[in-house]
């Protein structure tokens, strides 16, 4: 359908045909192309029904089954679409222009689904915490509503309640994230944003241990998130005001001035660049908030630390993937005409993000906060790739996201294993001598850290190299230099953790590495495997990314 008549649904309605109500033409929805999202959202709804109707005892397994199947099926659908050429030749816009089905969208959806699947395993882990009253428990509160330490909570624990709602919440979040990078108009963008944010807010609040931290994290995340999305919405409004439409294609045309017939109103607003720039800036800000770029990063450490670690892992990886996807689409599809305005700004943001992320991380003492700051630094690196306004830029970012997300999930999965009496032992001092106690786990974690640090033969290096190369070719050499320098700084604190694990004597009261169920084991194994494979033989995935590297408009 043509981009000029956006949203046939509403606009046709708006034209009254001489009193008589005209027939509403049924919108054409390409179900096949939307199937991945539909499957996941559908499964989420199903999950809620399960909550309603399935007896408590069976819920856990039912939910786990439904979610796993849904994610797997979704991934299968994505693959099918990709094979069907929807990523390249038959890429197009679906659902009346609301959603784009093209290379980046499918690639990122695939990544999100896989990451979601891996995260799901960590969500479902029930062997780490000591069984309470004979019931296996996972890392989520028995009953979120009950006050920590209160009788009701004790009762809930005694009764062996578990918050199986986390699974549908996870599915909703995944669904939203899948739509986010595929959204082809600002409205869908906004909706997707909220659809995956709200479940995350909730998930953050659901930790079984350290609930105070968990709730605090949730509040901070929620308030700041809502604050950010308010800005985003205002930006959307301004863009709409500027272009008279929220469709990406339309806005792009207006920006470039290649629009067909210009209505007088449009002519009026088109002239007003302030609307455009202001709107663009605000929408971008909303996305930068989600990727955790400086100076919109301050929620990251607190939320990462407070949230239940499986949630943190999921958030840290999947959210970044989705948000960067959306950011890419926004900058490359909607605002290419504005490149000379946003690139310098992004340069600044990227540089600051890398530097501050790396530097502040040095003095962190909590492993989760440390990883949070490292994720900030990485956001900076990825931004460097985003800035290279060329296809290599897109594909390099896609590859980096794929590599990074798996490393992150794996790393946080390892964090869930290291526990002492008070639950997870996240303070660095407690990790001393871990390498002596359980060499294998420490070694795996070391691999993840080295990948973060970007040491060759790990996925981290391949990704970093791809991004920097693209940036350099895009003429951002200074940014590359800043990048390598800050990675040198960043290397320091990754190394510090390794030193701690291997070279310092274990403390007598130190934490133990809990023996995980196959679920977490699989999660970690997958993470490690992907890290190494993408590091040693990245070619196939690079090809994938570069094939997927073109947006449809």
């Amino acid at each position, binding site marked *: 359908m043509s981009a000029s008549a956006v949203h046939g649904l509403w606009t046709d309605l708006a034209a009254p045909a001489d009193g008589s109500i005209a027939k509403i033409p049924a919108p054409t929805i390409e179900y096949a192309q939307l199937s991945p999202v539909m499957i996941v959202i559908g499964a989420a709804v199903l999950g809620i029904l399960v909550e309603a109707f399935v007896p408590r005892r069976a819920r856990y397994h039912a939910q786990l089954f439904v979610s796993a199947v849904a994610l797997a099926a979704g991934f299968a659908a994505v693959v099918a679409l990709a094979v069907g050429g929807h990523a390249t030749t038959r890429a197009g816009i679906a659902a009346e222009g609301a959603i784009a089905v093209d290379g980046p969208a499918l690639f990122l959806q695939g990544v999100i689904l896989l990451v979601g699947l891996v995260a799901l395993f960590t969500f479902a882990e029930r062997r780490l915490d000591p069984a309470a009253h004979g019931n296996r428990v996972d890392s989520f509160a028995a009953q979120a509503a009950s006050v920590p330490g209160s009788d009701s909570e004790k009762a809930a624990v005694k009764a062996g309640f578990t918050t199986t709602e986390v699974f549908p919440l996870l599915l909703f979040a995944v669904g939203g994230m899948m739509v986010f990078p595929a959204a082809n108009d600002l409205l869908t963008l906004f909706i997707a944003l909220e659809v995956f944010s709200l479940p995350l807010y909730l998930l953050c609040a659901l930790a079984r241990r350290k609930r105070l931290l968990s709730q605090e994290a949730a509040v901070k995340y929620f308030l700041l998130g809502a604050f950010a999305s308010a800005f985003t919405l205002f930006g959307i409004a301004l863009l709409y005001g500027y272009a008279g439409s929220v469709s990406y294609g339309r806005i792009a045309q207006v920006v470039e001035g290649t629009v067909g017939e210009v209505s007088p109103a449009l002519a009026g607003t088109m002239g007003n660049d302030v609307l455009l720039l202001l709107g663009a*800036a605000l929408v971008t800000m909303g996305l930068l908030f989600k990727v955790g770029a400086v100076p919109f990063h301050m929620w990251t450490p607190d939320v990462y630390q407070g949230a239940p670690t499986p949630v943190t892992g999921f958030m840290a990886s999947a959210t970044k993937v989705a948000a960067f996807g959306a950011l890419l689409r926004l900058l490359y599809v909607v605002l290419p005409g504005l490149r000379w305005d946003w690139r310098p700004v992004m340069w600044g943001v990227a540089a600051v993000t890398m530097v501050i992320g790396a530097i502040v991380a040095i*003095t962190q003492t909590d492993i989760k906060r440390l990883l949070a700051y490292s994720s900030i630094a990485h956001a900076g690196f990825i931004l460097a790739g985003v800035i290279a306004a060329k296809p290599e830029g897109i594909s390099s970012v896609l590859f980096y996201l794929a590599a990074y997300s798996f490393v992150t999930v794996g790393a946080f999965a390892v964090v869930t294993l290291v526990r002492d009496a008070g639950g997870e032992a996240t303070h660095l001092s407690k990790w001393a001598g871990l390498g002596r106690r359980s060499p294998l786990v420490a070694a795996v974690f070391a691999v993840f850290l080295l990948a973060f640090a970007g040491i060759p033969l790990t996925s981290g290096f391949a990704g970093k190299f791809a991004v920097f190369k693209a940036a350099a070719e895009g003429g951002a050499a200074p940014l590359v230099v800043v990048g390598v320098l800050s990675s040198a700084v960043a290397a320091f604190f990754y190394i510090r953790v390794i030193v701690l694990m291997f070279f310092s004597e274990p403390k007598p009261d130190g934490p133990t590495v809990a023996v995980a169920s196959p679920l977490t084991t699989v999660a970690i194994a997958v993470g490690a495997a992907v890290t190494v494979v993408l590091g040693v033989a990245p070619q196939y995935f690079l090809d994938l990314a570069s094939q997927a590297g073109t947006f449809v408009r």
Partner: protein
Amino acid sequence: MIALLIAAPLLGAAVLLCGGRRLDRAGHWIGTALAALSFVLGAVLFAGLLGRGAEDRTLVQHLYSWIPVEGFQADVAFRLDQLSITFVLLITGVGSLIHVYSIGYMEHDERRRRFFGYLNLFLAAMLILVLADNYLLLYLGWEGVGLASYLLIGFWQHKPSAATAAKKAFLVNRVGDMGLSIAIMLMFTTFGTFAFTPVLDGVGKTGEGTLTAIALMLLLAACGKSAQVPLQSWLGDAMEGPTPVSALIHAATMVTAGVYLIVRSGAIFNAAPDAQLVVTIVGAVTLLFGAIVGCAKDDIKKALAGSTMSQIGYMVLAAGLGPIGYAFAIMHLVTHGFFKAGLFLGAGSVMHGMNDEVDMRKYGGLRTYMPVTFVTFGLGYLAIIGFPGLSGFFSKDLIIEAAFAKGGTQGWILGGVALLGAGITAFYMTRVMLMTFFGEERWRNLPAASPDQPDVEPAADHGGGVPHPHESPKVMTVPMIVLAFGSVFAGAFFGIGERFVHWLEPVTSFAHGHPPVAAWVVTVATVTVMVLGVGLAWAQYGRRPVPAVAPRGSLLTRAARRDLYQDDFNHVVLVRGGEHLTRSLVYVDHTLVDGVVNGTAAGVGGLSARMRRLQNGFARSYAVSMFGGTALLVAATLLMRAV
């Protein structure tokens, strides 16, 4: 054949040093046998040379290419000619004798095997030095003898003094070696090679400046090896080594390598008169320096060392005179090889009989107790002071004549110095003679163990107390006797009819010097001066009894005892200064260079700690930062558009 000559002692060294304890019993015989073997080989070669015509007595044996690199050829090639064969005979001959002597001298040392290994190593290196056909190979031998001397001086390593002396010797030599290597580099950049023939023939093709530079660098090397001023300080301390070592290395052979180098490079020096002048000056100064030091020392070996220094001074002086001197230099070198080796062996024999007492003031009247030693030593003494008819007389006299023959004021000065030196030589040698073999027997009324020699050489384990002077065993005396013969007749044999000169002429070239005064005048003068010296010495040490404890002495005496303060100078300036330098550098490295690095790290850390505070936990302040960030973003975007 030539290679075999070197191989023999090399093999000996390898076998003895790697052989392990099972060779302890036979070790010294193996060593001596191989040394003797190479002497025999040398003799055979010599005979071979004699068989040839005077002009084609140069054999070159090219073994293999040592360092073949783009534009850089260093071969392992040996050159046998009159000059080198002379040295070969001297080295292997005296060397063999001293091997024999050492069998007796080192009898009681449990590390005798290693001692002989080192001796063989030295022989090999020295032979390489004199047989090499290019300067790089010569350098190899040059450092080789340095190593051997290092090992032998420090042979009694448990004595800190010995270890220090060894180190000092090596270091001072290294300074000289610097000169040699720079000289070689200069040759390479000038001639593109450093083989003797092309270099020495190519002298004409290049400017005098370069040649002077090369010559001076060679001289520096010679100073190091031959203990010439200013690099002479090591020789005195080198006497820490066992006496045979002093005899072989620090009297007869190694220390004369410098003279060999100068004579060998004669063509270069001939073309660089300024350099030659410097050479003569160095020679003259050392000549006096050594002589003066020799007068003051009470340690018999140190006194002899001083004399060695001064005798080599003569040789260097002669070598500096050019064609008129080269041959005489070598001739004096050979004769000196004989009598000085003899003297040292004699001294060794004395010490052997006196519980290794080296202080002459504690000797006296020994002639009756050790007659053989007395006689041989005496003959050596007569030879060195240039008693008419003995070898020293011929060689030294010729040098003095040549010195005068240099002509002009230089001639007079140099000649005068040489003459004076002859007198002083006579003085201090007589002094040694008198203090050791004549006068009252001061060693009778001695405190028990000699206090100034706390660690007694293992060679003497017949306790302290009053020594019982006795003659040394045959194995020691025989070499002394042989050398004595040498010191008596060598001079006459060489000198009469200029046999030696003509023998060397094809290599060193020879020109008759014409002294301003008739030759016999010089001779007479020399003899007179010599007699004066002897008389003076007798007046001081012969008539009056010698105090067993050294008197304070005159200013000059005290200065001479302390090597004219040359060591103290080194110590203060070089050693102390060096220590300060290194210590301060260590400090700099730690605080500055390393400090910068650690400082940067600390700085980043501090920055991090400060930035951390922004993360203060207040949700609202986070919101503020977001708000501010947005404002910035918007502002920046608008600004971009504005500009």
